[in-house]
C-alpha cells in the first residue's frame, strides 16, 4: 500500500498503477485524447500531462503511462501544466484547424489564438484564432471525390489509436502510418481501398477528433446495419437492444456483424462492461421444458406490400408501410417522433391506402380487421404531428367496437379527406419523381369520378397474414389451419380458444386477425382454460377406448404395429393381445383391422355402426 497526493488529496493506492487510473478512480478528471479502455496507454497526445513532485524534484510526465510511487505529490491543473496543455492544443490546432473537437478543447483551456502558422496564406476556418491556414493538399473534397487517399487528415492528431485498434484489437490491420515528420499520415496500405477492411467502423468510432470516414478506407462498401425493429429507418450496432421494451432488457450480439466472430479480435464491449456480463463463448442452447398445457400465441406476419407492385413499395422511396410510419411517429423512434421523409423533407400531403393485402382477390380475400382503425389513428397522428393534408382511400370503412365509430367521426371532423374507392395506381408526378411527389389514382365511388391526388407520402395499410412457419407449427402440435392459414379453433362459437389437440390453446392473431383488446380477452380465456386443466390435476379420458375380447382373440398380432400410441401389447402367457386403455386414444384402427373381430371400441361398436347404416338407409 502506497500513498500519493493528487491536488492536495491524499489517496491510498497500490504500486504499478498509472497516475491517470488513480486520479480517475477518485473522480479527478485529467483531459486526454488518446486513452481508451481497450488499448494499452500510449501517451501519444500527451494531453494528460501532470506535474509530479517527489523527493524535491519536479517533473512533467504523461499521467496515462507514468506509474504512481509512494509519496508523490501530483498537480493535475497547475499553471505550468495548463500552459503546456495550451501549447499542445495550439500545436494540434496548427495541424488540424478544422477539427471541432480540438477547437472546443482549446477554447475550454483558454487558448486565445494559435501562434503557429501554416505555410501559404489561406485563411483558416478555425473559429478561435483565424490566423492558421490550411494547406491546399490537406483539404479533402466531398466524400467520393478522392477515391483513395489519406484516411484522416483534416482532423487527425496522429494519436494512432485507429491503427493500434485495427491491428491489435480487431486483428484486421487495414490501417497503417505512412511517412515521417510533417508527412506522417494514417492511410491504407499503398493508399488503395483496403481489401481487409470489414467496415466495422471501430476506427471511426474510436477517433478522438472524429476524423475518419469509412468511405476513404473502403469506398462504396460501408453499409450501416439496418435496425430490424425500426424497419431499416435507423441503424444499429452489432451489439444492440432488440427493441426498447425487450424483456429481459439486455442487449444481444449479432453474430453475423460482430467483428469478434469474423476475426477473433475486438471484444471492446467486454473491456467496457463493468459487470463483466459479456461472454462471447456463449452458445445457443436448446432447453426442454416439461409442461402440461400449451398456449399458442405465435402472432401474425405483416403483408409484404411488394406483392402489390402497382402501389410502388420499394420502387418509390416515399411509399411507406403503416408500421414504418408508426415508427416515424413514435417519440422513441428513429426521428424522435417527427414525420420526415427519407430525403428529410416534411410531407405536406399524405395518402393512406387501406386494404393492402386484404379483401383482394389477388392476395388475401379476408378482412384484416385492424387496418381501418389504425389507418384512422395514423391520419389523426399525422394531422397532429405534421399538420399535413391527409387522404384516406378505403373500400368500406369498418369501425366496429367500443368508441371506434366515434373516433372515426372525430377524425372526419378533423378534416381528414375520406375517399371511398380502391386505389388503382401510384406513380411519380410529371417531374419524373425528382421532387419525390407521387400521384395516387383512384375512383371515388361515391362521386363516381376518377381522382388523381398528388401526395408527398404514401402510407400502405398492410394486412395481417399467418406466420410463414404456421404450417410447421400446426403439424408439430397436431392442430388444423383454416383456409387462410390461421390456426383453427375447435369450434367457432363453443370452443373458440381450444384446438383439436387437448391441452393446446390459441390466443391472438395466430388464430385470426384481431385487435389488441380482442387479443387480450382471448389470451385471458386461453390462460383460464389452461389453468382449469392444470388446477384439476387430472384430465378425463374420452370413453371411446378399445378393448380385446380375450376369448375371441386368435393372437395373430396384426393389430400391434397398427397402433400409433403403442397401446397394444401381447400377453405371451395367454397368447392374446392386450390394449392399455390409458394409452389408447380411441381411433379404432385396430378394431377395423382385427381379422377375428375380437377388438371392440366403446361407443363405436361394430353392431352400433351396422345399425346406424341400417338406420340412415331406412328412409328414402
Amino acid at each position: 500500500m502506497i500513498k500519493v497526493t493528487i491536488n492536495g488529496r491524499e489517496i491510498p493506492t497500490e504500486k504499478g498503477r498509472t497516475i491517470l487510473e488513480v486520479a480517475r478512480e477518485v473522480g479527478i478528471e485529467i483531459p486526454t485524447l488518446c486513452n481508451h479502455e481497450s488499448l494499452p496507454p500510449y501517451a501519444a497526445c500527451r494531453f494528460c500531462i501532470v506535474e509530479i513532485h517527489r523527493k524535491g524534484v519536479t517533473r512533467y510526465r504523461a499521467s496515462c503511462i507514468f506509474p504512481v510511487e509512494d509519496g508523490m505529490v501530483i498537480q493535475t491543473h497547475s499553471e505550468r501544466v495548463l500552459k503546456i496543455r495550451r501549447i499542445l492544443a495550439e500545436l494540434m490546432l496548427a495541424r488540424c484547424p478544422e477539427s471541432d473537437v480540438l477547437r472546443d478543447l482549446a477554447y475550454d483551456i483558454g487558448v486565445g489564438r494559435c501562434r503557429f502558422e501554416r505555410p501559404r496564406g489561406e485563411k483558416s476556418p478555425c473559429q478561435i484564432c483565424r490566423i492558421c491556414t490550411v494547406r491546399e493538399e490537406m483539404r479533402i473534397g466531398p466524400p467520393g471525390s478522392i477515391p483513395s487517399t489519406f484516411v484522416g487528415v483534416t482532423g487527425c492528431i496522429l494519436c494512432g489509436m485507429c491503427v493500434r485498434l485495427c491491428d491489435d484489437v480487431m486483428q484486421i490491420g487495414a490501417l497503417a502510418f505512412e511517412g515521417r515528420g510533417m508527412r506522417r499520415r494514417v492511410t491504407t496500405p499503398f493508399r488503395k481501398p483496403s481489401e481487409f477492411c470489414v467496415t466495422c467502423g471501430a476506427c471511426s468510432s474510436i477517433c478522438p477528433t472524429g476524423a475518419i470516414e469509412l468511405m476513404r478506407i473502403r469506398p462504396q462498401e460501408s453499409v450501416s446495419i439496418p435496425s430490424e425493429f425500426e424497419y431499416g429507418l435507423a441503424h444499429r450496432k452489432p451489439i444492440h437492444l432488440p427493441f426498447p421494451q425487450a424483456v429481459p432488457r439486455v442487449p444481444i450480439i449479432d453474430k453475423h456483424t460482430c467483428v469478434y466472430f469474423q476475426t477473433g479480435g475486438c471484444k471492446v464491449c467486454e473491456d467496457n462492461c463493468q459487470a463483466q456480463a459479456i461472454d462471447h463463448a456463449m452458445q445457443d442452447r436448446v432447453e426442454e421444458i416439461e409442461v402440461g398445457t400449451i398456449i399458442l400465441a405465435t402472432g401474425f406476419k405483416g403483408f409484404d406490400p411488394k406483392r402489390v407492385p402497382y402501389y410502388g413499395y420499394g420502387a418509390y422511396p416515399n411509399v411507406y408501410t403503416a408500421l414504418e410510419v408508426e415508427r416515424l411517429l413514435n417519440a422513441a423512434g428513429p426521428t424522435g417522433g417527427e414525420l420526415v421523409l427519407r430525403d428529410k423533407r416534411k410531407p405536406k400531403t399524405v395518402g393512406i391506402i387501406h386494404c393492402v393485402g386484404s379483401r383482394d382477390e389477388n392476395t388475401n380475400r379476408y378482412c384484416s380487421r385492424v387496418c381501418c382503425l389504425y389507418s384512422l389513428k395514423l391520419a389523426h397522428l399525422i394531422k397532429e404531428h405534421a399538420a399535413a393534408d391527409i387522404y384516406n382511400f378505403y373500400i368500406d370503412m369498418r369501425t366496429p367496437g367500443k368508441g371506434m365509430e366515434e373516433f372515426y367521426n372525430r377524425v372526419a371532423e378533423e378534416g381528414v379527406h375520406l375517399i371511398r374507392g380502391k386505389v388503382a395506381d401510384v406513380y411519380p408526378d410529371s417531374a419524373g419523381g425528382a421532387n419525390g411527389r407521387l400521384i395516387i389514382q383512384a375512383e371515388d365511388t361515391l362521386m363516381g369520378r376518377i381522382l388523381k391526388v398528388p401526395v408527398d407520402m404514401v402510407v400502405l395499410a398492410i394486412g395481417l397474414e399467418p406466420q410463414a412457419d404456421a404450417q410447421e407449427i400446426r403439424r408439430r402440435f397436431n392442430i388444423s389451419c383454416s383456409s387462410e392459414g390461421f390456426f383453427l379453433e375447435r369450434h367457432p362459437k363453443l370452443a373458440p380458444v381450444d384446438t383439436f389437440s387437448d391441452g393446446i390453446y390459441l390466443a391472438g392473431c395466430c388464430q385470426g386477425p384481431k385487435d389488441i383488446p380482442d387479443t387480450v380477452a382471448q389470451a385471458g380465456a386461453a390462460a383460464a382454460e389452461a389453468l382449469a386443466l392444470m388446477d384439476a390435476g387430472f384430465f378425463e379420458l374420452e370413453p371411446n377406448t378399445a378393448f380385446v375380447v380375450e376369448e375371441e382373440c386368435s393372437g395373430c398380432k396384426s393389430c400391434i404395429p397398427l397402433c400409433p400410441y403403442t397401446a397394444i401389447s401381447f400377453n405371451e402367457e395367454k397368447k392374446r393381445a392386450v390394449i392399455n386403455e390409458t394409452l389408447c386414444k380411441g381411433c379404432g384402427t385396430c378394431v377395423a383391422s382385427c381379422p377375428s373381430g375380437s377388438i371392440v371400441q366403446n361407443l363405436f361398436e361394430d353392431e352400433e355402426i351396422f345399425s346406424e347404416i341400417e338406420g340412415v338407409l331406412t328412409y328414402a
Partner: protein
Amino acid sequence: MPDSNWTPRIVAFFCNWCTYTAADLAGVSRMKYAPSVRIIRLMCSGRVDPQFILDALAKGADGVLIGGCHPGDCHYVEGNYKMLRRFQMLKRMLEDMGIEQDRVRLEWISAAEGEKVKTVINDMTGKIKKLGPLGIPQKFEEWDRELERFAREVDAKQQAQAESKSEPEAVHA
C-alpha cells in the same frame, strides 16, 4: 333409365376431426349441397372397416363416401393411411363384383374445407345419378325369388318324379 325424381342415397363415414368438422362448417356456413348424403361419424377414417362399406351397399346405399384428414394431418398420426391401404384393396374387389368405381369414394377433407364437402357431395351425387340406383337389396330379393322359383321347380320336379315313381308302385301294389 332411372326415375327423374330419384335421388341417390349415399352413406358417408366421416372422421371426427377433419371431415366431420368440415361438414359441420359447411352447415354453419349455410352452404347448400345435395341432400343425398347420410353421415356416420367415426373417430378416425382408420375405423372404417371394409365390412361397413359392403354392408351399406348391401342395405341399399347407392354409394359410399369416406372422408379423412389430409395425409400427414391425421389426428391419430396415420389412421388415414391405414384406410387408404384398405380402400385400394376394396376397390379392386368391388370392381370384380361389378360395382362401378364412382360409387365408392375416399376423400381427404380438412376441418377448414367446408367448401370441399359441398363440391365432393354434389359431384358424387351427380355421378351416381348418372349411374342410376345400385339396388342391391332389390337384386337380393330378385335372387331370392329366383332361388325360390328354382326351389319350387325342383320341388315340383321331385314331386312329379315321386308321383311318376309312385304310380307304378301303386300299379304293382
